């Protein structure tokens, strides 16, 4: 934000940016979403100071539920240090004056784009997902008027047909991320573009999962202890991705991996996409084949950053 704007608007924003009436409106939408798991609740999404597609839905949910005692974690692609996650975490540290963490266990609110943390979630934790396209059927039917009717009539034949078509074309159900799920055996739901590797983590989860789509103006939820079933066929059961490689840093063979290109000769390594999980494992003494390798540049001390602005 420009210096002129800052000078003039200093103190002009409410706690956590949104005004209280807007927060109440969003909380009502969240309550409705929790009451009808998987159902997309339309809401009066506001214009936010970050662009659409960059997390406006997730930010509005967080802004509406975050309190002074919360501990906030924000990840993108599983990592706390990706640029947009850093930007959003700093936004809430600034406008909500809230404690932040990179440790999954310590967080009360975890905002995410494209991943569910590897560590099991606990009761009382809230996952907030940034959702680009809340409508799982949109790729099959572009009209909102049609897809709302399909949900109302529980008419999901088109979705199953699409899965069948991919079986016939590829010999298996295609789809790597944003794999459709049926929530509480009623509503078809997009889990947001998390890899299907993460889909099973939503089933009977201890945590509350809230999904916010700012541009599309929809909120939906998976309450704790709710059935979430990834769609499949009896003869083509749902399966998650598996990596043959272990994490080069912590040696983990279970986690979802980022592929890191090391040079222009095709050398690469695989590391845990969940940076907090990988750090915890390394601190606990686990080591991978390239242990000690430093990813990216060192982040400076956050205090010196504040001075620089």
């Amino acid at each position, binding site marked *: 934000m420009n210096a002129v*704007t800052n000078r003039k608007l200093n103190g002009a924003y409410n706690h956590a940016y949104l005004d209280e009436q807007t927060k109440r409106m969003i909380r009502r939408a969240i309550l409705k979403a929790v009451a009808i798991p998987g159902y997309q609740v339309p809401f*009066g999404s506001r214009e936010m100071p970050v*662009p659409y597609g960059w997390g406006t839905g997730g930010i509005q949910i967080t802004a509406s539920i975050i309190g002074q005692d919360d501990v906030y974690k924000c990840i993108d692609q599983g990592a706390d240090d990706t640029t947009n996650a850093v930007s959003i975490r700093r936004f809430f540290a600034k406008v909500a004056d809230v404690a932040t963490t990179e440790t999954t266990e310590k967080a009360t609110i975890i905002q995410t784009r494209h991943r569910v943390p590897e560590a099991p979630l606990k009761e009382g934790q809230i996952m907030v997902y940034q959702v680009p396209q809340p409508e799982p059927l949109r790729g099959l039917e572009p009209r*909102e008027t049609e897809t709302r009717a399909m949900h109302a009539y529980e008419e999901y034949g088109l979705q199953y047909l699409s899965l069948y078509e991919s079986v016939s074309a590829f010999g298996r159900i295609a789809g790597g991320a944003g794999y459709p799920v049926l929530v509480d055996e009623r509503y078809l739901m997009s889990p947001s573009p998390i890899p299907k590797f993460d889909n099973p983590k939503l089933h009977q989860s201890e945590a509350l999962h809230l999904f916010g789509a700012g541009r599309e103006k929809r909120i939906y939820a998976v309450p704790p202890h709710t059935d979430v079933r990834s769609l499949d066929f009896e003869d083509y059961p749902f399966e998650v991705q598996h990596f043959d490689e272990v994490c080069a840093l912590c040696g983990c063979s279970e986690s979802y991996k980022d592929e890191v290109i090391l040079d222009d000769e095709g050398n690469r390594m695989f590391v845990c*996409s969940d940076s907090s999980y990988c750090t915890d494992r390394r601190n606990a003494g686990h080591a991978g084949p390239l242990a000690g390798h430093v990813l990216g540049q060192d982040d400076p001390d956050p205090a010196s950053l504040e001075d620089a602005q």
Partner: protein
Amino acid sequence: MAYVSVKGGERAISNAHQWLDEMRRGDTSVPELEVEQIREQLSLAVDRVMMEGSCYDPDLAALAIKQARGDVTEAIFLVRAYRTTLQRFGVTEPLETSRMAVQRRVSAAFKDIPGGQILGPTFDYTHRLLNFDLYDTGPAAMAPKAVDPVAETVPTIASVLAHESLLEEPPADAPDADAPYDLTRQPMAFPAGRDQRLQALARGDEGFLLSLAYASQRGWGNTHPLCGEIRMGAIAVEFTPEELGFPIEIGEIVVTECQMISNFEGSADRPPQFTFGYGLTFGHNERKTMSMAIVDRALRHKEIGETPAHAVQDEEFVLYHSDNVEASGFVQHLKLPHYVDFQAELQFVRRLCKEWHEAREGGEDSTTNDPLIAEAAE
């Protein structure tokens, strides 16, 4: 070994923003632009930012243009993100555009109309030759004043045609007309009412509406438009505070209004008559206002009894995709990392690729040797 950094850091973000500030300022030996200069001398950019930013404030719009380095869409975004935090006091009285202090008013439908044709400050009929005198600053240009003042009330073209019932009556206000649909507080809903449609079009991207309107002129949803009237000028904004019970003037805004007329050959339910499309924008913007009126008319096909066949007549297509802040954000979010999804794609494509090569080398294809599946795949 070449090293590829994959994680972004806080220092990188901070440095990038400082670099942006530096680039915005440009060569420091050139005097810095003042917001007032932008407001006064780039006034049409200011008008567009106010309109698509949905906030009538020339100073804020000028500040946004300065901060956005002249990127109008970015400036619109800045104004929107500020506007959304402002408190609402209430809804003003409807504008009476017949009481506009007209600066420009032309009709292409009639050679002369009550109130007369007033050209006003227009680029029309100028020769688009670069004026090299503008390289230097010079004395301010002054236009001569008219001898006779413009009438206080200038009737609209709609009221001129109304005597013969040749122009359709504007649709009656909805029962809840006191609370017009507000897209900045309510999500898009379909079918869209007139208030929702006109608000979406007024906030919509000028370029998008221009191209849609142009496409419809070229036959992709022909509306046979004719510019019944276009007028621009200042108009009083009135508001009725609850405690007073009568309207008071709270300010004046400049708007451009367009009534676009289309002929209609009649149907079983309606006599042949002219139908209209409506456009209204803040400030002076005829390109946007006329495009809006043409698109408005095209989207009214159901009321008129036409069969929709083109994109411009599809309200879900038009209203969902006209907002440039939404569009710009979502298109550009592709710059954000997608390595988790890409990894999933990569795994899948590698597996398919491996099978493809194996099938060709071994003469066996695991996926298509089943005749049933092979048939379904075609």
